[in-house]
C-alpha cells in the first residue's frame, strides 16, 4: 500500500509537471465552450471556414498544449491569443475534456489506410 501511495504521489507530481494537476470537468467545459462554438462549431467539428481547425475529437493533451501555448503567446494567433489569455488551468482542462470527447471526422492517418 505504501508503494501504491508513493506511485500515486509520483503520478500526481508528473501530472503537475505537465500543467495538468487539475481534474477535468467535461460538463463545465461544455458550458464554457459556447464562445469556441461560434467558430469551431457546436461540437468543435463544424468550423465556419477552412481557416478554422476542427477541434472535436482531437487528443485531449494536444488541446491542453495548444491552449497553454496560445495563453502564453508561444503560439501566435490574434483570435486565439485573446480567447486563451484569461483561461485558468482548470478552464483549459475542462474545455479540452469536452471537445476531445466529441464525435469528429478527425483521425490518425493509419485509420485511412484501408
Amino acid at each position, binding site marked *: 500500500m505504501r508503494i501504491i501511495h508513493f506511485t500515486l504521489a509520483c503520478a500526481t507530481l508528473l501530472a503537475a509537471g*505537465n500543467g495538468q494537476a487539475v481534474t477535468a470537468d467535461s460538463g463545465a467545459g461544455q458550458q464554457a465552450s459556447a464562445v469556441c462554438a461560434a467558430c469551431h462549431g457546436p461540437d468543435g467539428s463544424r*468550423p465556419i*471556414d*477552412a*481557416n*478554422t*481547425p*476542427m477541434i472535436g*475529437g*482531437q*487528443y*485531449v*493533451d*494536444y488541446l*491542453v*498544449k495548444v491552449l497553454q501555448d496560445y495563453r502564453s503567446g*508561444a*503560439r*501566435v494567433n490574434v483570435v486565439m491569443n485573446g480567447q486563451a489569455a484569461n483561461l485558468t488551468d482548470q478552464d483549459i482542462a475542462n474545455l479540452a475534456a469536452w471537445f476531445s470527447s466529441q464525435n*469528429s*471526422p*478527425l*483521425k*490518425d*492517418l*493509419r*485509420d*485511412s*489506410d484501408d
Partner: protein
Amino acid sequence: MRPALLPLLALAALTAATDGHAAGNAEQGEKLTYTCTGCHGVAGYKNAYPNYSVPKIGGQSETYLVNALSAYKIGDRKHPTMAAQAQSLSEQDIADIAAYLSSVK
C-alpha cells in the same frame, strides 16, 4: 473582343494564379504524406519534451493545414521536427498535402 483587352485578361489570370495559395492536388499530396505517417499515423503517439499526443490531422480543415505547414516552414510556429519537415516542402507540396489530408475520410 478588342485586342487591347487581351493583356488585361492575361494580367487578371496571372493575378488569380498568384493570389493566395496554389490549388492542391490530393493525389500528389498522398504520396508526400508517407513521412507524416511515421508520427501522425500512430494512434496516441506522443511527442517528447513536452510530452503530449501528436495531433490527428486526417480530415482537418484544408486552409488550416496550409497555414500550419507554412508557419512551421518560416518559423512562425515552433516545433523542431515539424520545422525540419516543412522546410523541405514547396508551396505546391504544402497545398497538395493539405488537399489530401483534408480529404481523408
